[in-house]
């Protein structure tokens, strides 16, 4: 694993992960000029989204076209309490 590409939340989630079946919803930041996009990554743009396993996170972290991997977080509706 190239931990330098992972944000703290993704690193902590991987550390806590229960098994290979666990999936992670992530943002994948690509080097904008690198045409070699990893196969697991679909869509357009410099920032993609994907649902991946821990093994796929490791594979992506070693991919030269990947700049950063960040765990998606759950947002809240901004209704006042």
């Amino acid at each position, binding site marked *: *694993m190239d*931990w*330098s*590409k*992972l*944000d*703290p*939340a993704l*690193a*902590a989630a*991987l*550390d*806590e992960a229960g098994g290979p079946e666990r999936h992670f*919803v*992530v*943002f994948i*930041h690509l080097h904008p000029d690198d045409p070699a996009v990893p196969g697991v990554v*679909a*869509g*357009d*743009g*410099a*920032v993609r*989204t*994907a*649902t991946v396993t821990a093994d796929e996170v490791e594979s992506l972290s070693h991919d030269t076209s990947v*700049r*950063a991997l*960040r765990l*998606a*977080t*759950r*947002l*809240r*509706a*901004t*209704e*006042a*309490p």
Partner: protein
Amino acid sequence: MRHEKLSPALAAAADAFARAGRAGLAPHGDRLGLVSVSPAARPARAVVFLHVEAGADLEHLADLGVQLNGGEGPVRTGIVPLERLGALSEDPAVHRIVASTRLRLLLDVATAAVHVPAFRSRTGRRGKGVVIGIVDSGIEVGHDSFAGRIHRVWDQTLNGQGVPEGRYGVELKGSSLSLSRDTNGHGTHVAGIAAGADDTYEGVAPDARLVVVKTDLLSAHIADGIRYVFRVAGALRQPAVVNLSLGGQDDSHDGKDSLSAVIDEVVGPGRIVCCAAGNEGNDNIHARVKVPRGGTRTIPCAIAAPATDSPPQVVSFTGWYPGVDRLSVAVVSPSEVQTPFQPIITKGSPVRTHSLADGLVRITTPGPDPTNGDHAFLVQIEPAPVPEGSHRRGSWRLRVKGTKVTDGNLDVWSVDPVAAQLTGKAVSDSMKVGSPGAATGAITVASFTTRTAWEDIFGQPHEAGLELDDISDFSSEGPRRDGGQKPDLAAPGAMIASALSVHSPVLPELLMDSLHVLMAGTSMATPFISGIVALLLEGDRTLGPEQVRAVLRSHSAFPGGGPGRWDPKWGAGLLDARDL
């Protein structure tokens, strides 16, 4: 007839109907909601609230011609023929019958406060030819306010093959739209403010077309939803504004987080995103400390200890500081046990876990963030349960040590203000606009209070603890961590009446009638601006985010401010749409 079960307004209408038939209803038609007073084949009917036992089986009321809406609570809504009102009142399952009254003009108050009617009257614009994207909890597709204008719903929570932007969820259109339900009600309310077509509570852009994403609230899926709206609008050859009345605090607060990066990437001419500033104005979620070289600083945290029978709860704190500095992080438990100072870890996993008597602590200290070059750390605490009858003395504390310091500024946020807040001298009412409100390319909206008192459907008076005609105290303050000016401006956000989803729970005191409910928040202010943006795009479909921001900010003001001024709470101030 059991008159004691009828609300006064309904009793008066029933009496008038008994004496003079439909003609007798005319004086009540303006006051009672949806009473069929005009001559028609259908009998005169009234929309009513029925007070019953929670969970009561009311199927037999269909024999009286009563059409009940969904729900199992103690207050149901339905339509009753007036000629059967007496029989309904005699039914032992029915404790009280209350007429649905017409709404108070709260949204009208709000629109008038920023002169939307004057702008629409001058320009004749109502949002026609523009898509408003609602990425939220869904929409009540059966609500009359949206009839015939919901183009697509992508329900991310249903199992299906999804759309090109994400192979999950189900895309719905036409008669299948009703498969998606807004069981929260937030998205329906938001959509009503932006685009509701309603005789009394008309939204800002009532002719706009709606593309709705019912999201699971994961930031990556919200990003997919934004891209989806813009693609669908592009296929229609229409400009679009996407409304995001949602947010979080576990990001870098500089607009460099992933969702903000996607927003910056996809906005452009005819593609605008409006975001809520957030509602953490009253919450101690942010602290700033200056860490000296070789010295330490401590930030106390207020964390509720769970009861022994509660499920485990993890509270998170995220810290950000310049990449030129190097800090070590420790946690002190309420029992005064401190974890070792953890430096930045660049070889192997940056995560270390410590099992303390007071709970589990996980500290993550990676190298610099690849996207902004700053250092971030994450502290997660899972407090051990406290036995019933006892309480834990002391508090959890974050402790940081300056190993290599050039700048020294450290900003820390509590990710969830309900679970944990920060205390002590370092707490700062600033930098509370998180993602996606921090996005450079977004129009970020604070809340202004235009109404603080109202009467609910039952005629009971209520007041909100807010200052009238002022910025809402709950509205989150900027600026961004990098000094960027967020929020951009303010719009009415409290207390706002808008469309009610019949599938959502609602507090009775916030009910205005069977179709509308009150809510407050920057969630409500944001669709106000999304609607305004739709009106601007109707006039010029090529407007981009910088042009929209410039025109909105130049027509906004706050007390004591002048042209070009900006305030951390107000942004550029309350919008005045009169001369847009």
